[in-house]
């Protein structure tokens, strides 16, 4: 049986502000989808709603994983069910070493029935695997001893997210601008590593504004989000078109969605000034 993550007519609000207005998306295990769209259109919101961020309220619609109701699950249960998100802005956890954090996370995700307080993955086994994966990502071994995202450069943070993807081996992963903040060489490495770790082995939803990350991860589908809705879906040529020509055609073709997007952006600017 191939795994399926299914999103149907999803509406999400932040506070009392509606952001997503009916998103439909079916992600099959082994597929790669690109999710594009202008700033503020709701791409990160979709990812955060899939992961279960408490600030993003699902007002209607459904998310299911192999038919099971994901909305019923707490974020940690979603992670243990095989859902992952690489964040656009990962949080720093001062004082917590990457290795300790990852050993805990990896144990919980690999052994979803583990009770609190039960043994973690044996240290040696874990260290060996972590070292190998870090070498693969050309990360300095010193990195494992640093505190989670604390004082990391933009590039280091994104690389740490990819390392977590590699360790946790989820069924489905949302990668939210995992290319931003990386220099050209680092983006190429990220693209290769993601392909290596996840292409055709996971269901990938890659949120990006550029084409480099997709170089080694050609999307089976490309979706365009505007004003909280997926207004168009195509193949990898759609991604190429958007990179070359931007969103003008899309904005003109979907004036209602464009109006909503502008309204949200205006509100955001207002809030920023207030």
């Amino acid at each position: 049986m191939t795994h399926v993550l299914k999103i149907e007519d999803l509406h999400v609000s932040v506070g009392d502000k509606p952001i997503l207005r009916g998103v439909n998306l079916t992600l099959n295990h082994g597929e790669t989808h690109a999710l594009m769209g202008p700033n503020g259109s709701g791409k990160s919101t979709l990812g955060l709603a899939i992961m279960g961020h408490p600030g993003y309220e699902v007002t209607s619609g459904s998310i299911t994983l192999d038919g099971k109701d994901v909305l019923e699950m707490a974020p940690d249960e979603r992670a243990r069910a095989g859902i992952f998100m690489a964040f656009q802005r990962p949080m720093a956890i001062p004082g917590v070493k990457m290795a300790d954090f990852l050993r805990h996370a990896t144990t919980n995700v690999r052994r979803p029935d583990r009770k609190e307080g039960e043994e973690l993955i044996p240290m040696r086994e874990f260290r060996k695997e972590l070292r190998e994966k870090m070498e693969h990502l050309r990360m300095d071994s010193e990195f494992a001893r640093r505190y989670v995202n604390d004082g990391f450069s933009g590039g280091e943070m994104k690389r740490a997210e990819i390392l977590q993807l590699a360790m946790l081996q989820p069924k489905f992963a949302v990668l939210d601008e995992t290319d931003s903040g990386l220099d050209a060489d680092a983006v190429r490495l990220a693209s290769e590593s993601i392909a290596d770790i996840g292409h055709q082995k996971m269901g990938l939803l890659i949120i990006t504004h550029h084409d480099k990350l997709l170089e080694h991860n050609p999307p089976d589908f490309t979706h365009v989000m505007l004003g909280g809705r997926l207004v168009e879906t195509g193949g990898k040529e759609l991604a190429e078109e958007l990179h070359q020509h931007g969103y003008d055609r899309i904005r003109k073709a979907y004036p209602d969605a464009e109006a909503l997007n502008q309204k949200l952006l205006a509100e955001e600017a207002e809030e920023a000034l207030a």
Partner: protein
Amino acid sequence: MSTDAPAEPKSEIGEINKYNFRTETTGVFKAKKGINRDIVNQISDIKNEPDWMREFRLRSLDIFESKPMPKWGGSIDIDFQDIFYYLKPTDHQGKTWDDVPQEIKDTFDKLGIPEAEKKFLAGVKAQFESEVVYGSLEEDLAKKGVIFTDTDTAVREHPELLREYFGKIIPPEDNKFAALNSAVWSGGSFIYIPKGVSIDFPLQAYFRINAESMGQFERTLILVDEGANVHYVEGCTAPMYSTESLHSAVVEVVVKRNARCRYTTIQNWANNIYNLVTKRAYAYGDATMEWVDGNLGSKLTMKYPAVHMMEPGARGEILSIAFSSAGQHQDAGAKLVHEAPNTTGQIISKSISKNGGRSSYRGLVSVHPGAHNSKNNVVCDALILDAESRSDTYPYIEVSEQDVQIGHEASVSRIGEEQMFYLLSRGLTEQEASTMIVNGFIEPLVKELPMEYAIEMNRLIQLQMEGSVG
């Protein structure tokens, strides 16, 4: 003979005290409850003390009786006449493990003393109620001239050192509880490290209150001679009782020129104990004194380890961690007194308050006239886990010199929703995530602890955190 039954039903969730058990003891001698000249004389008789010590005790008793209770800190509600001031569990001090009575071993077993014993056979001393009943000292330490014994023995065997230093760093006049300790003190450690001798493993001691309503008044004196180096570690735990107990220790440290001393304490008292401790060190030219102080449990802790930097180049560092939960008040802090030029002081304090607990930082930085070119930096961070809990900061700064650098930073934070979500999204449960965030918060201090204490500290935090979320 021992029982595992706690003396009272477990209170709220999260109020787990790992050492919530008691061992029956048949004390050989138990002084009457209360305090007066007769009791103090009796303690001195039993210990067969020299006259100078008896006089010191009696003088201290007068001072204790004439001093008012401290007006700051926490609220103290103690009936001084309802406390046992002296209890001697065995009539001689055990030389080897085999000599230690079984019931006392049972208590040690539960505390994990045998493990510590295995690891640090050399340095372990254990205090059971008022007397040191078991201690061993590695031979080559003795060969180097190191003295590591209980303070009662030191009064008999090292009178010249004791008469010179005992009660000189913290005289009984200092405060009401120092006076009380000076009158009825019993046990505690005496350490002398000769010139140039460096001990490269920590010397350790365990302290423990057992009999109900029994005060524990240990008295520790550490002398680190010129160019010497020592790390002393003290861990304290106590079983839980319904009547309030009092722990009031005095710790005096002298660090001579170019010497170094680190004194590490992890205290996890039961929730009904008043923990009122006076700790002070004198650091001389280019010497370094470090206090590392972790306070968990107790009803009220008032403890402000102090370093007086007496000569140029002296350094004083104080690292303090406080964790307070329901019904607890940690009034902890530090004192740094710059009495000479070119001295450097640093205070780092971290406090965590949970389930209505209250943590206060109370600190004094004092720069005396003439202590020019001195530097002092204070950082205190508080983490509050819920809306019922509380944290306060009382920094006092007295500077009588122009040419000094003084820094003070304070922060108060709560566990952020975003940090929590990040950890949950990686499969950690709420419990694991909040414990991890708290451990991360104190990590900069925990990494200064010897390995097994760092593990113990993380475990204690985990126990304190259990049941706190969800």
